[in-house]
């Protein structure tokens, strides 16, 4: 007799369908010479679209309660994050078409790995048990390691993959060890029961539980690339193929945030006072170090890597608040952030030649004359990353700061606003090159890769739209917060 109703599997239709898609692409891609990049990308997008449709259907069917022996939960919170992942994945696929084509890489494997990673993310957002969360996380991580090394013949890409793998494995070790200690001290892996178990355990001064949750949280900080657990980030982000970097910086980071929030708010809810101190320290360090280190970079991709560390710090402000507003602010921010970060990496990608050339600041010189539309879009992305209106980045940051102030963490918010002012310097460094410097070569850039440019246009449009009328996204994020039965508010 099963401990659950088998019909509940139907609710996992989006995840199951996406897995099937990934496998089909893999098989089709390995028959003969396989499909070319465009066709495979198109098929993947169709897969994503159908998955999104199924997601809406499953969300409508679900009652928001845990399913399958409480391994997964289909609540509004999970739904919101899944939308973010699917959007970020679709944009990543659109960014990838050209690079696979020009590098003559096998398309099937690449897209199927992306879809598998996304499947892992979908499961992560729904995970309601430390074990199911860990397994989904590994599915995402293992696919990402391969993706990071996708330039097989490039040393830097290999280096990135190895570094990512070793440190990723280390962080998984932390996670797993933390999970086992928590299991040892509370006797459960279910997030709901874990909260109750932790109250008892900490009341009895159980050291195992304390070490357990700290290890667990450290493992998660690795995944979101927060200081001081960020050391892998710059090298991996620079070495990985740019679309993959964009994917890691958006979808992968968002997924890690989803489980971080789920675990902190649900499983570790009773320890809120303790973990807030840890999160505050990590948030402050990430904002300071991420921004300061970005100041000295000469490579735009590396600068964006450090900036993504800083942005992890900003989102942590919302997590730190442990309030409704903090939560929806973090969700709003990750949504908006995905668009302008993917956009920024997209521009980097467009200017790249022969894998890595064209990534330094000076390669952007005179872009405003050579390709005004690209420069204008990059300007929008840079303003959004700095947090200047009218962009989604501005509202995102204001919401996060507001949440931190409301929750009484004013000093962290002060670090946040001051470091965003610092970040202006290096983001505007790109703008200075594009608009204030002249290139040796002033001929207009030929318009290549129309799909890519259109994708960037979409990213820029959404970034500005969220900067003018953020209301409906805020409402969506808010409704995704309220329905969850957190132990906090």
């Amino acid at each position, binding site marked *: 007799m099963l401990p659950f109703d088998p019909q509940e599997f139907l609710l996992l239709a989006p995840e199951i369908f996406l897995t099937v898609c990934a496998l089909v692409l893999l098989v089709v891609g390995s028959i003969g010479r396989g499909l070319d990049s465009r066709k495979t990308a198109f098929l993947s997008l169709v897969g994503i679209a159908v998955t999104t449709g199924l997601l809406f259907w499953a969300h409508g069917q679900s009652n928001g309660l845990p399913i399958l022996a409480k391994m997964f939960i289909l609540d509004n919170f999970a739904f919101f994050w899944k939308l973010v992942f699917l959007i970020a994945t679709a944009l990543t696929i659109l960014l990838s078409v050209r690079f696979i084509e020009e590098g003559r890489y096998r398309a099937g494997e690449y897209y199927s790995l992306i879809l598998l990673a996304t499947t892992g993310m979908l499961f992560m957002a729904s995970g309601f048990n430390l074990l199911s969360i860990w397994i989904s996380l590994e599915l995402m991580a293992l696919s990402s390691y391969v993706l990071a090394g996708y330039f097989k013949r490039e040393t830097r890409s290999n280096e990135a993959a190895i570094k990512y793998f070793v440190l990723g494995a280390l962080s998984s070790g932390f996670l797993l060890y933390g999970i086992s200690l928590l299991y040892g001290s509370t006797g459960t892996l279910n997030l709901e029961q874990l909260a109750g178990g932790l109250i008892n355990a900490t009341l009895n001064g159980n050291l195992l539980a304390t070490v357990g949750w700290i290890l667990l949280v450290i493992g998660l900080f690795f995944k979101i690339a927060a200081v001081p657990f960020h050391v892998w980030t710059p090298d991996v982000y620079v070495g990985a193929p740019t679309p993959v970097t964009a994917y890691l910086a958006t979808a992968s980071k968002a997924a890690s945030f989803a489980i971080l929030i789920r675990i902190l708010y649900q499983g570790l809810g009773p320890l809120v006072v303790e973990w807030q101190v840890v999160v505050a320290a990590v948030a402050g360090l990430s904002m300071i170090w991420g921004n300061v280190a970005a100041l000295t970079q000469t490579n735009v991709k590396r600068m964006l890597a450090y900036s993504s560390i800083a942005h992890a710090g900003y989102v942590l402000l919302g997590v730190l608040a442990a309030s409704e507003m903090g939560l*929806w602010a973090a969700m709003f921010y990750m949504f908006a952030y995905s668009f302008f970060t993917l956009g920024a990496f997209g521009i980097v990608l467009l200017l790249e030649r022969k894998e890595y050339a064209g990534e330094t600041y000076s390669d952007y010189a005179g872009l*405003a004359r050579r390709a*005004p539309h690209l420069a204008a879009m990059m300007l929008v992305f840079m*303003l959004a990353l700095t947090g*200047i*209106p*009218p962009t989604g980045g*501005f*509202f995102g940051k*204001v*919401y996060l*700061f*507001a949440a931190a*102030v*409301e929750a*009484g963490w*004013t000093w962290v*918010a*002060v670090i946040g*606003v*001051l470091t*965003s*002012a610092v970040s*202006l*310097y290096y983001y*505007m460094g790109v703008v*200075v090159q594009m*608009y*204030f410097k002249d290139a040796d070569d002033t001929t207009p850039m030929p318009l290549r890769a129309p799909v890519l440019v259109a994708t960037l246009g979409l990213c820029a449009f959404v970034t500005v739209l969220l900067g003018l*009328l*953020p*209301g409906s996204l*805020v*409402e969506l994020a*808010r409704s995704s917060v309220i329905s969850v039965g957190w132990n906090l508010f």
Partner: protein
Amino acid sequence: MFDWLQGIPILSIICYVPLLGALFVIFFMRSGNGASIRRFATAVAALDFVISVPLWFAFDRDGDLFQFRESASWIESLGARYEFGIDGIALLLILLTTLLGVLAFLSSWSAIDNREKEYYVFMLLLQTGMLGVFMAMDFFLFYVFWEVMLVPMYFLIGIWGGPRRLYAAIKFFLYTLVGSVLMILGILALYFYNSTGLLGWGGLGNERTFFIPQFHEISAEIPLDLQIWIFLVFFVAFAIKVPMFPFHTWLPDAHVEAPTAGSVILAGVLLKMGTYGFVRFSLPILPEATLQLLPWMAGLAIIGIIYGALVAMAQKDMKKLVAYSSVSHLGFVMLGVFALNTAGLNGGILQMINHGLSTGALFLLVGVIYERRHTRMIADYGGISSVMPKFATIFMIITMSSIGLPVLNGFIGEFTILVGAFNRVWWWALVGVIGIVLGAAYMLWMYQRVFFGNITNPENEGLADLSGREMLYLVPIVVLCFWIGLYPKPFFEILEKPVDYVVTKIDLAENGGLAVIDGRVVEEKLAELEN
């Protein structure tokens, strides 16, 4: 005859006409076609000025404090709304903005010869940003415009500026951004105090809102320690913008490197944002903190007056001289504002307008001569009144206006400020007088070295006098200088109510509402003003 203005969203129209113009230029005009772009952009600015003038006539001097109200929902989850409305202070500054806008556009025709399309787009966007700042009645909306405005200015300095433009541009942007990001924390503190409370301060439990009059309303209920914190973060934001000593160091760089039109807008309008911020937010929302910190504020204003004047005197570059004179003049404005009485505030606000006109004109004039000779060094000139008589005459009038000669606008402003300062602390006025004397010294000395005597440099012999277009953008300023100088009454009339409001707020905090203004007890008067 202007009743119809009440029925249409006139403020939004004025605010967004430049934006629409900019969009039109971006999408429908080719970058090679500089001549038609500049004509079009100038026409848009002129149209904007023309539709803003009726505000002056339609504004009801005896009516509500804020008029031409527009209200729409915007971000409901925060309680931020799209609220527009202006009082007399904002009205004057809006007219100044649209007027200086046209003049700055006209002056750019010959000064800007590369990347014209981008230039006029940024100028138009800047107009929208500045107008929005003065019109917003929602603190959040205000903040959005406040920050948006930085971006086009950054580009104007960075692309079309002088040799050190990159340094000046990023310095301007960084300085002002640091100020404004701190301000958002102050705004959030007010917002949460008004609703759910923050840190140790229990909230007032009102509905979440960023509506500025709501913050005015609760001013008496904000505890002093919180008031002081908020005042300090606002102070950093506004003091950087004004700029007050010691936050002024970005200003000479930005002014000297910016193109002429950029300097005009910067001095004419952008600096007024800081003083406007003090009058609109710091004083009426945080009156107790204002009184508490008054000696510091006045002290910095006084240091600014004297320091700015002394440094201006030492300058060899005309544009730098005018830039430092701004520090001194804005010190005057702040002295008037922090006199916290009717005369001081009236004078301070009027002097904001005066400074916009006279310093704007001085930058235009320096721009005129720079275009001809490509130097701004005082030593390169001398005796040019004989070859450029019209130029010399207008320069003289503006100089007189700047140093506060009777019959011209500067006199009215400075005199009123001194009256206000004298009533607050008598020796403030004394220092103010010293500042005026120093101001006369550096301006007249510069005038003498540039215009009088024989032509020493043969290159100056062939200088052409003002062209028709140049007269077109200089004469309106001269006319306004005389108007304000001879008949300032309409200006004071329009300022009466908002100034009264601020003064009453201050008196309420200072004397517990027992002071008597116009024969009525303060509280009674406040109630009357507020409805």
